[in-house]
């Protein structure tokens, strides 16, 4: 039986196991939206296409499945760009479907036309313009395959209106054959053997973990590996939740706002085992002084990540789950030597404990004014253990990374690579849509929150009970901090003085609004918010000029941390 392009799209989504899509209708996707009513797919109507893509991204990060978003052509499609770039930088599997003007009008400056294939080329793993309905099923199959396999990433399918309307026989391919795309999953056994030799010879090893561990669901393997050799583990922002912060081997985050002891451990290490991390400049600081004494083993599924920013002594290309399993198995064959290694590393662990004792993660408490770090600590204390936390971007994001102490994978969703303000609220929405029963918290600043606050309407409409925390300092806090430290306190355009009443804003949308202005109100507000059904905004009037510390100034080495203001 023949089906139209839009029916083929929806049939294929069902076959891919898609249960929820996020989007916004428009002229060139009206056929898809019309047919959508006949398919068992839940659609969430966001209030902006950027919100739809971030929501699909949050859904993908929380579940590990491919997130799907739909937007119309032209402005609808261009509104997806920040969302797509965010997912691209953090390697998140997404399929974004954009409508396009009919094929006969493409290139003619038609109404609501934009060259979305051209625009998204540098920020997608791959993209497709479907010119013939006969290609559609194959392209969708390929798009999902490309999005979720290898190093995951966003794929755009640009679907002209006439292709949606044209009909053909529907046959969904069972397999995918792309001759130029064959990701390497299995780590080379000889390289792994070499790595094990290097590990057994190390005196001061550090495991440096990136977002890849979450992407390949290798948290258990990572824990097994770290505990086998009893080596300290430091995580990037993207990997925060993939290694339990309460494990004695955890050093927390490294880099610009990492812990003093993580950065000291990196600086003094003799072997760095990089696991699914890409040596971002926020992590390395000045490259010349990054891990100056260490040999580097770099495990990654993406060969382009290896040797991109730093020298690497031993590359291993493969899926982390596979490589870590093989590594642990290989170490198992050297039980005596492993025992010896664990004993040899005792002084190293003591040295690290010394750094931990000297400069623990701390802040100056106050009983007069709300300290943002205190709010984060209280949130941690009062929230469920499997709560999913999203953040926007800025000071609140770093405080969350520093003080929330994540313990379970896929519970911390944040825009790491692109640093997208306005990410957290729609991402929380997506996560909550995936897990209606779990606690989902968006931690934001007053600046970031206002980037996509319209998504409050979506939360209320779909009864998604996200709890929103606004650490309100009436500043674009992180830029203000830099202006204070490096620009002689010239606070150019970072002061958001207009006193927005976030409680009333919540109420205007039909949500609940709560406010705390002094430290003794913090706990009560959080408890009340968690006990209130539906979406809630918690506004905390926090210390205005609190800084995120410690800090490695941009361009400095990890050993040059600023510890106090």
């Amino acid at each position, binding site marked *: 039986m023949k089906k139209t392009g839009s029916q083929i799209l929806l049939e294929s989504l069902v076959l891919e196991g898609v249960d929820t899509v996020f989007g916004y209708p428009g002229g060139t996707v009206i056929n898809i939206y019309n047919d959508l009513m006949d398919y068992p797919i839940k659609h969430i109507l966001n209030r902006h296409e950027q919100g739809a893509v971030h929501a699909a991204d949050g859904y993908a990060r929380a579940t590990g499945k491919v997130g799907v978003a739909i937007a119309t052509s032209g402005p609808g499609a261009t509104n997806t760009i920040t969302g797509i770039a965010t997912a691209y930088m953090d390697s998140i599997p997404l399929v974004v479907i954009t409508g396009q003007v009919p094929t006969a009008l493409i290139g003619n400056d038609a109404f609501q036309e934009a060259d979305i*294939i051209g625009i998204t080329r540098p920020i997608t*793993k791959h993209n497709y*313009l479907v010119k013939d309905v006969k290609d559609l099923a194959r392209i969708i199959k390929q798009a999902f395959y*490309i999005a979720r396999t290898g190093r995951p990433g966003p794929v755009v399918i640009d679907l002209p209106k006439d292709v949606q309307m044209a009909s053909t026989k529907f046959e969904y391919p069972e397999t995918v054959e792309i*001759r*130029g*795309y064959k990701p390497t999953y299995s780590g080379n056994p000889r390289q792994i053997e070499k790595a094990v030799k290097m590990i057994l010879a190390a005196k001061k090893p550090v495991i440096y973990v990136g977002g890849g561990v979450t992407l390949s669901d290798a948290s258990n393997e990572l824990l097994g590996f770290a505990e086998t050799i009893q080596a300290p583990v430091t995580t990037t922002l993207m990997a925060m939740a993939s290694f339990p912060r309460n494990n004695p081997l955890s050093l927390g985050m490294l880099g610009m706002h990492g812990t003093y002891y993580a950065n000291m451990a990196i600086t003094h290490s003799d072997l760095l085992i990089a696991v699914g991390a890409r040596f971002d400049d926020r992590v390395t600081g000045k490259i010349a002084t990054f891990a100056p004494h260490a040999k580097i083993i770099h495990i990654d599924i993406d060969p*382009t990540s290896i*040797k991109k920013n730093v020298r690497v002594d031993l590359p291993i290309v493969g899926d982390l789950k596979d490589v870590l399993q093989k590594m642990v198995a290989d170490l198992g064959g050297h039980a005596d030597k492993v025992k010896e290694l664990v004993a040899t590393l005792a002084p190293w662990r003591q040295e690290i404990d010394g750094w931990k004792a000297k400069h623990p993660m701390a802040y100056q408490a106050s009983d007069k004014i709300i300290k943002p770090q205190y709010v984060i600590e209280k949130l941690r204390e009062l929230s469920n253990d499997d709560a999913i936390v999203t953040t926007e971007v800025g000071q609140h994001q770093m405080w969350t990374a520093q003080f929330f102490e994540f313990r379970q994978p896929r519970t911390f969703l944040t825009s790491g690579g692109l640093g997208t303000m306005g990410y957290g609220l729609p991402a929380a929405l997506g996560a909550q849509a995936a897990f209606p029963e779990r606690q989902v918290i968006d931690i934001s600043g007053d600046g970031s929150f206002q980037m996509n606050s319209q998504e409050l309407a979506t939360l209320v409409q779909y009864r998604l009970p996200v709890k929103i925390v606004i650490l309100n300092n009436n500043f674009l806090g992180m830029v203000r901090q830099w202006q204070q430290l490096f620009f002689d306190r010239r606070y150019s355009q970072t002061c958001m003085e207009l006193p927005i009443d976030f409680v009333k804003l919540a109420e205007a949308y039909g949500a609940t609004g709560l406010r705390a202005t002094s430290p003794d109100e913090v706990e009560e507000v959080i408890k009340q918010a968690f006990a209130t059904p539906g979406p809630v905004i918690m506004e905390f009037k926090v210390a205005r000029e609190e800084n995120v510390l410690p800090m490695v100034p941009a361009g400095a080495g990890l050993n040059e941390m600023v510890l106090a203001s």
Partner: protein
Amino acid sequence: MKHTISVLVENEFGVLTRVAGLFSGRGFNIESLSVAPTLDPSISRMTILTRGDDQILEQITKQLNKLIDTIKVIDFTGQDFIEREMALIKVTAEEETRAEVLRIVDIFRAKVVDVTPRSYTVEITGAPAKIDAIVELLRPLGIKELVRSGPVVLGRGSKGWKGAE
């Protein structure tokens, strides 16, 4: 350092832009690029000349390989290969220089493919250095127009990459 890379890609619209965009987006320079379908019409072959140190070249080849449409990347660095480029050169040919142009054309085993009372158009094929040489000799006589194709390259020896593996 100059590098010659051949890239076999799916012969689909937009692939050239993907490759070119990869270079521009990362600040790598393309010195020359030639592209056409291969024996297998579903595959195109690009020959790219670029410059960079070892680290940059490694990134270029890895990034090219990473493109979904890329089937194979061949880096000719350190290999023995045949390199040919074609040029069409329109040279001023007045009474006093006509013989000189023909002499140069003869020496270089080039061909005159168009003649007017005031010009010769010369076709030359060879390694880029040979084309540089003839251009330098013809330049003082007056070059009106010049077009070069950019080199195409094949490895020496009996082994060949024909298309589908």
